[in-house]
């Protein structure tokens, strides 16, 4: 978030390692991007440290993240039941399915993994496919950097274990709103984890009894979370070009490229176009 922070003093302050000023400058930089470049003067005038939220990592953030995510996590639980059923059908024990949900915590890749499951287990195919499906998380994690740069490595790398699509989306929503809750991801991730693991166990126990999750609309929850998030992330005209690029590239890539590469390709293409357009 370099020199775009505006007030000339902020760079000097950073050089002295003045943390509060550093944070305040960042918040302005983030905010200005959010607002487009329409109101520079006004932004500069609110550049004081005092009225800028700091990014903190505390119990309150964990709690807020947890409770905000519970309704969504309930839906994720519906999907977890489906995963448990599939894992059961693939021949995994309840304990093995639960272990997978507790340690991997990435729904789509787990479902694909148990679909690939066979006897003997195609270890390389499964691990490589899981990696490819989840590579999008690198991009999602990188998008957290403007806020997470204020956290310690332990806080960052601990929280990221709990990152899944749904709670990443809710976390971005909270962070872009300027609440400065660095622990939101952890709290929301714990909510997802609890419901995901519990639902996996229920599904694996229930086996074939529970039917198709599409009957209850659970399969639509992820899309619904993302539609809601899109509504909030829309920043007007400055969003138009990157979003059109992401849309076009992801739709075409989904047709042409197997797996979930389209997410990565769509996101990267938009970022590249923005880098090229920068300063024009």
């Amino acid at each position, binding site marked *: 978030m*370099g020199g775009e922070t505006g007030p000339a003093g902020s760079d000097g302050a950073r050089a002295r390692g003045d943390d509060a000023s550093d944070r305040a400058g960042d918040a302005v930089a983030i905010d200005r991007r959010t607002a487009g470049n329409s109101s520079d003067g006004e932004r500069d005038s609110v550049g004081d440290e005092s009225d800028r939220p700091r990014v903190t990592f505390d119990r309150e953030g964990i709690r807020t993240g947890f409770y905000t995510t519970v*309704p969504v996590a309930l839906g994720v639980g519906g999907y977890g039941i489906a995963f448990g059923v599939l894992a059961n059908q693939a021949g995994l*024990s*309840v*304990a*093995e399915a639960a*272990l*997978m949900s507790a*340690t991997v*915590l990435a729904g789509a890749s*787990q479902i694909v993994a148990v679909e690939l499951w066979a006897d003997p*287990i195609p*270890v390389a195919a*499964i*691990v490589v496919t*899981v*990696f490819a499906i*989840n590579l999008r*998380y*690198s991009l*999602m994690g*990188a*998008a957290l*950097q403007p806020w997470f*740069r204020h956290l310690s490595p332990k806080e960052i790398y601990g929280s990221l274990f709990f*990152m899944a699509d749904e709670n990443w*989306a*809710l976390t971005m929503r909270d962070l872009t709103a300027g609440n400065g809750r660095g622990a939101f991801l952890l709290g929301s991730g714990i909510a997802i984890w609890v419901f995901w693991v519990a639902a996996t166990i229920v599904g694996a126990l229930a086996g074939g009894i529970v039917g198709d999750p599409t*009957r*209850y*609309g659970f399969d*639509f929850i*992820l*899309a*619904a*979370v*993302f*539609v*809601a998030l*899109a*509504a*909030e*992330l829309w*920043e007007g005209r400055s*969003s138009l070009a*990157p979003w059109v690029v992401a*849309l076009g*590239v*992801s*739709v075409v890539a*989904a047709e042409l490229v197997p797996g979930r590469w389209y*997410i990565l390709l*769509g996101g990267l*293409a*938009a*970022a590249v176009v*923005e*880098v090229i357009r*920068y*300063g024009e």
Partner: protein
Amino acid sequence: MASEPPLQWSMLALEPLVVGVVLAMALVTYLTKIGGIWLVRHVELSERLEAGLSVLPGAIVVAVLAPELAAGGPAEWGAAGVVLLVMWRTESILLALVAGVAGVVLFRTLL
């Protein structure tokens, strides 16, 4: 799965190979989760690159959504519209989700 052990045992079974594969999956997944932010934390980024990074949240959301909705049908499109409408009117994500899921179930029955 040739000779089935007693039910309680099979439920709790943890075969070493299965556990190994699961842990390998967990490891590569964790690496994807931390990889991106590790990179941007350890590489000095130009303003230009940071501008690119700043469009990522919206772009990723669109890239997740667009193919999913394109693969869906009128029921999913209608429900997505319901979510947008409720978000716009109430700004409550919970209401929007409930309306969206109810909408998709309803539209799938109707359409």
